[in-house]
């Protein structure tokens, strides 16, 4: 069956603020769905969108799929249960920086560690929106908010670093405003077997406007971000004249043609290598020193938790000594009273 994005739109009114970056992400996911269905031979009823609490977590109501709006921070756990119970479902977790990294940090890292086959779309706007403007675990150091009137004194998390620290197999990043890149990485995350984390840099127009605009504004985006593609040299810039090389232990930005730099000197992106070294450096890149990395940064093959569970059950049932509860009750030491 051929689907259109329209098939994934529910009848519910979308209630995010006008101008919120979440609208664009909803659009990119709805646009990615037909592609996902076609390339993986999925039907719509197999999709489940699960969320926690926060602005982004209203997302499941806007998708005409199965949906579960959970409680704060626990979406990873709910999604894990759904996937393990029925591995034929395709499970998408929608979460925010507070939901996934503050109250839900524990579930987030353990879902990744287990490599459970779910897609975790992390809306990172570096602020608490639904509670009206308090700092989050990704707010920049020194940021003034309602709960940090003198500026925060906390270092922010880098979500990608947490993914690597949890031995994650997939990490991608995109901007809310870049629908094309977003749509593409949604499809790739769906295709990935295992916990796929997609960090969406998203704008909160009310409480943290322009937080990503230094890199996301249309006029500067090409020069301040790099869209990584597996197997391709790391080139970026409006004029496609900038690139990344490895200089000692660090990544360095260079201009092709300057100081004798040729395209062949540039790093070639290898998303599939298990070694997290370069992935870690790419994840950490910050403007202005370096462009912010977008696209699929890491996509490594490994066994998934749900596959392992299913295999164990199949194996145990094949070699079962006990086939039903009556047999179980009579197993071990028993005696007759006559």
């Amino acid at each position, binding site marked *: 069956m051929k689907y259109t994005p329209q098939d994934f739109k*529910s*009848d*519910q009114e979308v209630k995010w603020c006008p101008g919120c970056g979440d609208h664009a992400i909803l659009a990119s996911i709805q646009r990615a769905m037909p592609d996902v269905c076609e390339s993986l031979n999925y*039907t*719509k*009823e*197999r999709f*489940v969108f*699960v969320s926690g*609490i926060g602005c982004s977590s209203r997302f*499941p*109501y806007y998708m*005409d*799929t*199965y*949906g*579960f*709006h*959970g*409680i704060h921070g*626990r979406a*990873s*756990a*709910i*999604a*894990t*249960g*759904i*996937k*393990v*119970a*029925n591995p*034929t*479902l395709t499970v998408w977790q929608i979460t925010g920086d507070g939901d996934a990294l503050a109250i839900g940090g*524990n*579930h987030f890292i*353990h879902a990744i560690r287990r490599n459970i086959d779910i897609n975790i779309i992390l809306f990172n706007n570096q602020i608490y929106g639904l509670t009206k403007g308090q700092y989050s675990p990704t707010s920049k150091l020194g940021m003034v908010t309602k709960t940090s009137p003198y500026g925060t004194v906390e270092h922010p998390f880098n979500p990608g670093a947490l993914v690597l620290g949890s031995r994650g197999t997939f990490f991608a990043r995109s901007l809310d405003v870049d629908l094309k890149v977003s749509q593409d990485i949604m499809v790739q995350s769906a295709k990935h077997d295992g916990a796929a984390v997609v960090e969406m840099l998203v704008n909160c127009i009310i409480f943290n406007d322009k937080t990503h605009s230094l890199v996301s504004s249309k006029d500067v985006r090409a020069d301040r971000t790099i869209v990584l593609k597996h197997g391709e040299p790391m080139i970026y810039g409006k004029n496609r004249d900038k690139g990344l090389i490895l200089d000692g232990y660090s990544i360095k930005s260079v201009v092709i043609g300057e100081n004798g730099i040729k395209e062949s000197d540039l790093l070639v992106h290898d998303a599939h290598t298990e070694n997290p070294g370069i992935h870690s450096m790419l994840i950490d890149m910050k403007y202005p020193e370096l462009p912010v990395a977008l696209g699929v940064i890491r996509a490594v093959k490994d066994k998934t938790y749900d596959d392992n*569970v299913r295999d*164990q*059950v199949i*194996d*145990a*049932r094949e*070699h*079962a000594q*006990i*086939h*039903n*509860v*009556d047999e*179980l*009750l*009579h197993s*071990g*030491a*028993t*005696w*007759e*009273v*006559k």
Partner: protein
Amino acid sequence: MQHKVIDTKEVVIRFTGDSGDGMQLTGTLFADASALYGNDISTFPDFPSEIRAPQGTVAGVSGFQVNIGSGEIRTPGDFCDVLVAMNPAALKSNAKWAKLTATIILDSDTFDEKGIKKAGFKTDDPVTELKIQDRHIVFAPITTLTKESLKESGLDPKTIARSKNIFTLGICYYMFNRPMDTTEEYLDNKFKKKPEIAAANKKALKDGFNYAANIHAIPNTYRVAPAKQEKGTYRYINGNQATAWGLLAASEKSGLPLFCGSYPITPATSILEELALRKDLNVKTLQCEDEIAGICTSIGASYAGNLAVTTTSGPGISLKSEALGLAMITELPLVVVNVQRGGPSTGIPTKTEQTDLNQALYGRNGECPIAIIAAHSPSHCFDAAFYSAKFALEHMMPVMLLSEGFLGNGSEPWKIPSMKDYPEIHPPIVTEVEETPFWPFKRDQEKFARRWALPGTKGLEHRVGGLEKNPQGAVSSDPINHEKMVAERAEKVARMANYIPDQKVIGKESGEVLVVGWGGTYGHLYTAVKELQEEGKSVSLAHFDFIFPLPKNSCEIFSKFKKIIVCELNSGQFANYLKAQYCQYKYHQYNKIQGQPFIVKEIVEAVNEIL
């Protein structure tokens, strides 16, 4: 000394020692042998939460009491006929449980100056200091004798020393005329890969037996005839195992795979362990990162169509409460097992209590009633778990099963039921509906249960969640809708009363005093009430398995007695609940919050006081 063989209906033996002395194993092996011999039995493990508290101290004493009988045995017994104490600390903390006529067997090797001091005795004569000189004290050099017994085994001294509990078991087998074959079989099995250790332990067992037979220091041996039991096949089962198996029975009868998301916690952990073994029965267990993930993965699994369970103890319930509200408002089937322990907070983890009833009844934000079923004996955990799952699945709601450490760890013989005698379970799963789009909160008019549309079913896509919804499934903060939904969810739980059996009364249905209890105190209350009835007193027992909702005839039962006394291991939580339900009655109370089960005697006294 004149040796006497005492024919008796009931004997209580208490094994005590350092938590590294293997007393739980010794007690279990003795109980197994007795059960297989045909006695009715009841056991009570009483151990500290420290795995190895400082050796030789009172804090590290671990005990295991077993009551064996030729008649009906409902409790592990109040006081013991035989006390085994492997060191001075064990004697110090357990002498109070020895009857005046008891035989006390001590490992004399441990009663040296150091050992006596470590146990905190003020003098060098523990027996006199404890004022137990009148009991039959048997000082047996168990450590030395075990060393002697196994000196040619080729084992190292540490391994040899570990067999002293088995040597002690041999002494007990002599005292109680127990066959040794089941224990020998156990040892062969356990040390399959180390036959030299199996052989050494079997030798220690026999030598212990022979030692006891030879020394003539054992004043009495006991003969406890096999109990007259109903015909059938029996096994020995503990409460946590029965809980796990009852859930498996519900999985079979509903045709739904069992999912258990859980986190290890004393004293509930062995339910998770038992279920983890059962992949052959299509069980999926997930040991989560915390209690919250335990319940949340289970809620997810329930949404996806499994029979979902989460198992824990009181502190775990505290952590799960928000998610329990989520299960309640999304109206998904879920069994939440609370094996209660001493609280509050971390409390006394390895000791038993019934102090989480209020938490079960009221421990959530908002209007959030949740059905509560209580197990009343180790084997009854099977039925209690089965019916918790049946009600959860058929009524589309979470059900809390209250067990207790006393039940979870306690064990008894059980006549194995046949699954054909258990009802089918029919959850309201739908595959197609009349309306488009699907209304997730449309209810059937009898049970008030909503329908269960599983992800993967074409055309029934819908959203559920923690936000209040209207029947169509849309988020709604409409005031009238909210009040209506709150009332409907409460009504659904209330209507469960139409599907539960009438409350039974043990004894006459009217009279002077009605003893009221719930949960794991059943054995003690039953024994006490029977004792009073045998004395000709007008006393009956109503012991509740269904806590919320209560059986519909409860009020009528109460009306037939002049006095009601509610006995429970808390400060009066069930009594207060009953006061709120049926305020026309006066409820006397007998409460105990010592982390210990009741003793029969105190119940008898409490009832006599108001008679």
